[in-house]
């Protein structure tokens, strides 16, 4: 470590921040996938990047893990610039990509051995480490089976331990629970927490599932349209919604009509009103008398209320509150942006 530090004059003093990101921009054609992103991640922190598909999470991760280059802006990981000292950065990091990084025709052990051998690890150490890692995720039994025969859950566990071969100080996880059943998701989340607790690994995890972000992350950055719109702990983010005396109401109205919804929206105390299905409405309302006002309006317009729930705000509500649209909506809204040229193919992005 000290040797590399001496050899590399580019090393930046970064205090207790493991990662410093400064005004990162990435342009694909005329489209900014990242439009000036800045944040710091402290040592041994679990940092979540939350946002809808296409918000720029994966692009951020690819740039930080040196797989893509930023159009402008800089980032420093463990004191090394990700563009100028990319080889040094690569020694510090591990990445669990959305895609499974493994060869189907190689066995679990062969896969790990191959990727491990690309790092400067002595043979015996690597061999021991592979055994330990396989043991850690209960794959020892399958070590000599070809990965192609594995289930999705097993593959994802493989995918995670592959990133740990070089004992990274920083681990990037891109949608680690995507496509996994609840059981496997819990296992992966527990594993990430354990890793962070026991090894002090700094972890950046991108996700579009609120549960992941809520349960895993020390701090969360919410990204939308290539910008960080909020960055704080989960509790503080939620306070953004509830702190200004807002409450979340879930109403079940069997005879819900568009007019009724409109009349609720018109109320001064209602910030957002979204219809979940034909009978459910979700409101974020402000003020002490919000509750009364809403019920009055519904009653006055002939609505029957089957049930009312007042909820703790979730990260979903925070997202809604900050961006004015739901997590799922935003990806759809961007399609026309990407197809700006007639007849021309949409701009290719990343990879």
């Amino acid at each position: 470590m000290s040797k590399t530090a001496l050899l590399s004059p580019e090393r930046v003093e970064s205090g207790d921040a493991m990662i410093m990101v400064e005004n990162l921009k990435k342009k694909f054609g005329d489209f900014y996938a990242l439009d000036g992103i800045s944040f710091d991640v402290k040592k041994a922190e679990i940092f979540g990047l939350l946002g809808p598909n296409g918000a720029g999470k994966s692009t951020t991760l690819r740039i930080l893990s040196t797989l893509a280059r930023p159009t402008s802006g800089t980032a420093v990981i463990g004191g090394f610039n990700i563009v100028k000292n990319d080889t040094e950065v690569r020694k510090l990091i591990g990445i669990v990509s959305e895609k499974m990084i493994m060869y189907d025709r190689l066995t679990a052990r062969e896969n790990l051995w191959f990727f491990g051998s690309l790092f400067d690890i002595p043979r015996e150490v690597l061999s021991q480490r592979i055994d330990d890692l396989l043991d850690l995720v209960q794959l020892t039994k399958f070590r000599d089976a070809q990965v192609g025969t594995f289930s999705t859950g097993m593959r994802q566990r493989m995918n995670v331990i592959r990133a740990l071969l070089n004992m990274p100080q920083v681990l990037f996880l891109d949608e680690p629970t995507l496509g996994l059943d609840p059981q496997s998701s819990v296992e992966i989340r527990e594993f990430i927490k354990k890793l962070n607790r026991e090894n002090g690994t700094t972890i950046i995890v991108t996700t579009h599932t609120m549960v992941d972000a809520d349960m895993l992350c020390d701090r969360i950055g919410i990204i939308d349209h290539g910008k960080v719109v909020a960055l704080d702990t989960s509790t503080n983010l939620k306070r953004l919604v509830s702190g200004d005396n807002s409450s979340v109401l879930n109403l079940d109205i069997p005879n819900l009509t568009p007019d009724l919804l409109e009349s609720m929206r018109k109320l001064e105390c209602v910030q957002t009103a979204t219809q979940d299905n034909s009978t459910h409405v979700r409101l974020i309302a402000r003020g002490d008398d919000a509750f009364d006002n809403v019920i009055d309006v519904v009653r006055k317009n002939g609505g029957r209320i089957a049930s009312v729930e007042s909820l703790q705000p979730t990260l979903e509500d925070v997202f809604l509150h900050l961006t004015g649209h739901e997590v799922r909506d935003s990806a759809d809204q961007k399609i026309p942006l990407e197809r700006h040229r007639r007849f021309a193919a949409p701009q290719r992005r990343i990879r």
Partner: protein
Amino acid sequence: MGAKDLLSHSFRIAWKDIIELYRNKFGLVLLIVMPLFMMGMIGFIYPTSGSSGGNLPVAIVNMDAGYHNSTIASQTFTSVLKQINERTSMLKLTTAGSVGDVKDSIQKGDLEGGIIIPSNFTTSLLNGKQGTVTIMTDTSNPQVSATIQTLLSGVFSEMGTVLAQQNVMKLSSSVTSSNALAIVQPYKVTTQGIVPGSSNYFEFVAPGIMAMTVMMSVMTGLPGAISQEKEVGTMDGMMVAPINRLSIILGKTLAQTARGLLQGVVLMILAIVLFGVTIQGNIILVFGLLLLGVFSFVGLGIVMTSFASDQQTATMLMTTLMFPMMFLSGVFFPIQQMPWYMQDISKVLPLTYATDALRKVMVLGATIPDITTELTILIAFGIVMTAIAVPVFRRAMTR
């Protein structure tokens, strides 16, 4: 550090690729079957001396009415025709009664052609006129008419020679039959190659096919393999390791070269065992040349890889490039037969030189000093292409 790590990482990547290839049993079988087919096709469909054409069903219609009860001319003609045909077995001769019968049979497809001797054949010849023979052919198959014509002109020239010989001998009693031949045909051509043994088309084509297969295998394999890794995502796994990015491309190339050489060896064994090709030159030089050929091509392959975004594009791009190379590099046809502008194009293709050098070594037993020109061009081509390819590849990898 540097070079040693670069190489050791490349070997690891190559070894990984080879294990993958080995585990893919079906792919492995195809790898062997492809050259087998290729060699088989070219070895068997091209006419080799003696076995060409082969038993075309042709009928003779003899309508010769004779001259003073003698049909000597048509008899001689048919017997010489049969003699020659026995040697070459190009035709399967039958006799037919009338022109109408022949036409019918050709239409039905029972016959490929007919040879019609007219009624005044002997009369004309014995009265100092030309004898005419009509060939009736299946017009939809130009090959047949050419074959019959070749055979008939052989027949006539032989008959003419014999007739002239007899005439010369009649004129002077001092002329023996062998002298007579020298008087009738004073010039004769024989051919002799610079290496012993008779040469055939296959010996011409085998070195070219080897060079082509090995290089094409690398050229198509490399972009395919790399874009596949990109698509699956495994490329990221390698890219995120602290290794020189060159070792990725080098390792992939090594694996593809091994694959290509395996095919080359299969081809060579087939050529030797099935088609009796003999390798006159040094076998190590043959492999050296194949490797050099690969080196000259790899740069091009890498550039293509960098441009192609997915596997399908990569394959299409390669196929597009492969075709002109196959036909313009003198693999199947000698370059000297092409028009000058095509020859000029073929002179910028590295495969041309690789094929040429390989042919010289395999067929003519050439050694390194004999092929320095080709070697120099191949090495130069390889260096230039690699120098272009490396920065292009680096850029393409981290967009």
